[in-house]
């Protein structure tokens, strides 16, 4: 505390009117975000070397490590190939219906991976195991590579390619020497995101019967209820996640897109597919059918079957209300926590504010199961009254989804630079007037977008909710899970359908909000 207080004062000297209160609050938010990490580190340290070695160097852990690593590597590479190929077809060729394909290729992100696996597993048990797992999670996560690569291809200044051609390069050499190097940051960034998502994935892999660290931790947790074995597994998993996070930070720091902002002035020339058009159409259509058609079709099928038996309206309504309520509470709390940290990072940049800001990003790399495990253990030992309460669940959501909120809130605050405050003040507006007439109208769309993102994430969150929801509290995700776990596919389908149904208005709001943020 003293060191950071000194830091505040030293760095504050340069800025005008340093908001000490905001800084202190931000520090608390950062500490909260770091709780799971501290917990894992402290636990690993306290367990002792011999015990740790006994817990880690077991054949079972070796198997989990091998499974996790091979799955992550294979899926990440496959996502890179599929995502980049699709992006190239949509952005750089004469593929018919490109706008529609763009939406459809991004849409799998809206279907939670565990719903996607449900779609596949409920159709055929043959997808259970390594190959099936690679297939299904690739179909869920390839848009994480597709979207950044497509955006980069879209924004590349065609003048670069034209310059290369003027320097005597043919189309193929131009693509290899000019376009591909510029795609590399987007591709690698997307792949790292896929990796982080895979390390955190629980529901899909459990359903696909492919044991990895997350499913291993869950089993241990159920068997020993937060015993040292589960936490030791969690610390190995956290180590893997941190490696990926470091790689991502390093990537982001090293590479800058050459051209930012409004994108290219002119669209680049497209490759004419000619007689290859049917082949290209066939591949994007096939990809869409596998990634969207199978889960949604299977959901509809089971919905039809399920409704022929019983339709538990009361239970469905309760679960839906709980999900919406938790989503709204999570969205509000997370946004309120993000605002001061983002404010500090945008308006009062210093070493202190950067450290605080970065700390909140760890949630991004921490699997839900690790956060849940940490909060369960800590609350049982030190904060018994909040164990098994909604409060603790909301805290877990905040830790997990603070990064989502931070990104939106920060870009929203950038929309309201201090020069606008100055202009408004000189026109006779007081501090409150500036907040009401300038800052809030500019920032509100971004805050709304951030809140909508968190809402979506909470509604489709499974792992932390399973571990932390108070007894008797059921959400759409947990009800879906318990039904499909007991192979009651027909009974599970309505919960998944409602989950997707609730997500649609929030996604719609999200597109509305992001459109309203006009570039200056």
């Amino acid at each position, binding site marked *: 505390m003293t060191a950071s207080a000194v830091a505040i004062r030293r760095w504050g000297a340069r800025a005008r009117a340093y908001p000490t209160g905001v800084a202190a609050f931000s520090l608390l938010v950062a500490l909260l975000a770091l709780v799971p990490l501290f917990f894992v580190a402290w636990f690993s340290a306290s367990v002792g070397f011999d015990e740790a070695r006994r817990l880690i160097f077991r054949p079972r852990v070796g198997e989990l490590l091998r499974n996790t690593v091979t799955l992550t590597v294979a899926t990440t590479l496959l996502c890179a190939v599929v995502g980049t190929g699709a992006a190239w077809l949509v952005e750089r060729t004469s593929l018919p219906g490109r706008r529609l394909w763009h939406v459809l290729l991004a849409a799998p992100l809206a279907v939670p991976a565990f719903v996607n696996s449900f779609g596949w597993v409920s159709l055929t048990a043959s997808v259970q195991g390594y190959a099936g797992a690679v297939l299904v999670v690739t179909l869920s996560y390839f848009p994480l590579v597709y979207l950044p690569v497509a955006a980069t291809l879209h924004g590349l200044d065609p003048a670069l390619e034209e310059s290369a051609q003027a320097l005597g390069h043919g189309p193929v050499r131009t693509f290899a020497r000019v376009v591909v190097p510029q795609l590399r940051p987007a591709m690698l960034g997307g792949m790292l995101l896929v990796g982080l998502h895979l390390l955190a994935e629980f529901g899909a892999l459990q359903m696909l019967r492919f044991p990895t660290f997350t499913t291993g931790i869950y089993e241990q947790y159920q068997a020993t209820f937060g015993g040292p074995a589960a936490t030791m597994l969690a610390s190995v998993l956290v180590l893997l996640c941190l490696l990926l996070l470091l790689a991502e930070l390093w990537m982001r720091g090293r590479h800058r897109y050459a051209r930012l902002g409004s994108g290219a002035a002119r669209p680049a020339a497209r490759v004419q597919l000619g007689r290859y058009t049917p082949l290209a159409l066939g591949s994007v259509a096939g990809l869409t059918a596998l990634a969207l058609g199978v889960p949604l079709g299977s959901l509809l099928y089971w919905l039809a079957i399920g409704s022929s038996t019983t339709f538990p309206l009361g239970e469905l309504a309760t679960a839906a209300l709980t999900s919406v309520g938790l989503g709204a509470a999570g969205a509000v709390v997370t946004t309120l926590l993000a605002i001061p940290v983002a404010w500090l990072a945008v308006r009062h940049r210093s070493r202190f504010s950067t450290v605080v800001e970065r700390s909140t990003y760890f949630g991004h790399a921490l699997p839900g199961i690790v956060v849940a495990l940490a909060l369960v253990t800590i609350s049982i030992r030190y904060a018994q009254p909040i164990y098994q309460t909604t409060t603790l669940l909301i805290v877990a959501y905040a830790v997990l989804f603070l990064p989502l909120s931070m990104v939106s809130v920060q870009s929203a605050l950038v929309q309201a630079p201090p020069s606008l405050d*100055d*202009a*408004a*003040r*000189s*026109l*006779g507006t007081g501090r409150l*007037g500036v907040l009401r007439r300038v800052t809030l109208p500019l920032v509100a769309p971004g805050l709304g977008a951030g809140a909508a993102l968190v809402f979506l994430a909470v509604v489709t969150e499974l792992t932390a909710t399973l571990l932390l929801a108070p007894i008797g509290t059921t959400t759409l995700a947990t009800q879906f899970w318990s039904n499909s776990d007991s192979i009651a596919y027909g009974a599970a389908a309505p919960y998944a359908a409602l989950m997707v149904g609730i997500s649609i208005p929030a996604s719609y709001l999200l597109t509305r909000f992001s459109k309203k943020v006009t570039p200056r």
Partner: protein
Amino acid sequence: MTELTVQAVTKAYGTVDVLRGIDVSVPSGTLTAILGPSGCGKTTLLRMIAGFDRPDTGEIVIGENTVAGGGQWVPPDRRGVGYVAQEGALFPHLDVAANITFGLPRVERRAGHRVAELLELVGLDAGLARRQPHELSGGQQQRVALARALAPRPAVVLLDEPFSSLDAGLRDETRRAVAEALAAAGSTAILVTHDQAEALSLASQVAVMRSGRLAQIGSPSQLYHTPADAAVASFVGEAMVLPSSVRDGVATCALGELPVNPDCADGAAQVVIRPEQVQLVEPHLGGIRATVAEVRFYGHDAAATLTLANGGQITTRLTSTELPAVGNPVTVRVRGTVPAYPQSTVGAAEPVGIEPSAVG
């Protein structure tokens, strides 16, 4: 009558002294330019007049009211000071009309009061009123920002490098429109800039700032023809600084014997010669011999670099119709008196024949 007075204002950020005692007074209804290189503290001074920053010591008086210093502090929203930021700072969520009326009382805002009048004042079409800021060009944005600043009829308008983000063609046109609008509104204005041509052509009074101090304040022609020292001379226009020795009001230097300002003490001094003072003459009239090293053609005029017998180089401005050929011998003379500065009081000495910082 004086509208704005800045007196002995100082400001330090940490251990860095940004302003070291600034005194400026701006007569009512005129435009004063504050000219200086980046980092000289000119923007800080402007922000203090606006009330965004507080001076450490000193006083700022607007009209009859002390707004800073002497135990007084008036926040920016009560100062009645118009402010035009470097890139306009238009509110991106409001259209042009709402931006312009932002500073007016609520009733007048509703009525769209004065929008057409102000748009006309800054030379914009009234049809732009419903546009969003991002639909305007940079020059239009700056004019709307000025209209917005003028709308509440401020006592003083502050302009913080308002033209620096515009490209050359637009800059000239916007400058003229802004100057005309300020004159038509009868505004008292302060313009901060690092562009000497801008300061000299727009302002009736120019203050040259250098590392937190005022180096000189005066009319544009005083500044150009009788600069306070060699550094100011070089900053406000292209200048050659030559070593010389002065005796009885005549300096002897590489360009011959030149009359200097009569108050210059005898002894070693530096003389400042503007390129347009150097003239090519017929050899039989007598003068200094030189060789043409380079000719630069600009269209409206031209410049030539000449090599003197002693190896030094000088620059001269020529009409573009009669240009000497490179390599030819020429004879030159210096027209008019030249300012001279005794060696001890000289600022940063410039090498002979330095390239201009900005031509035209």
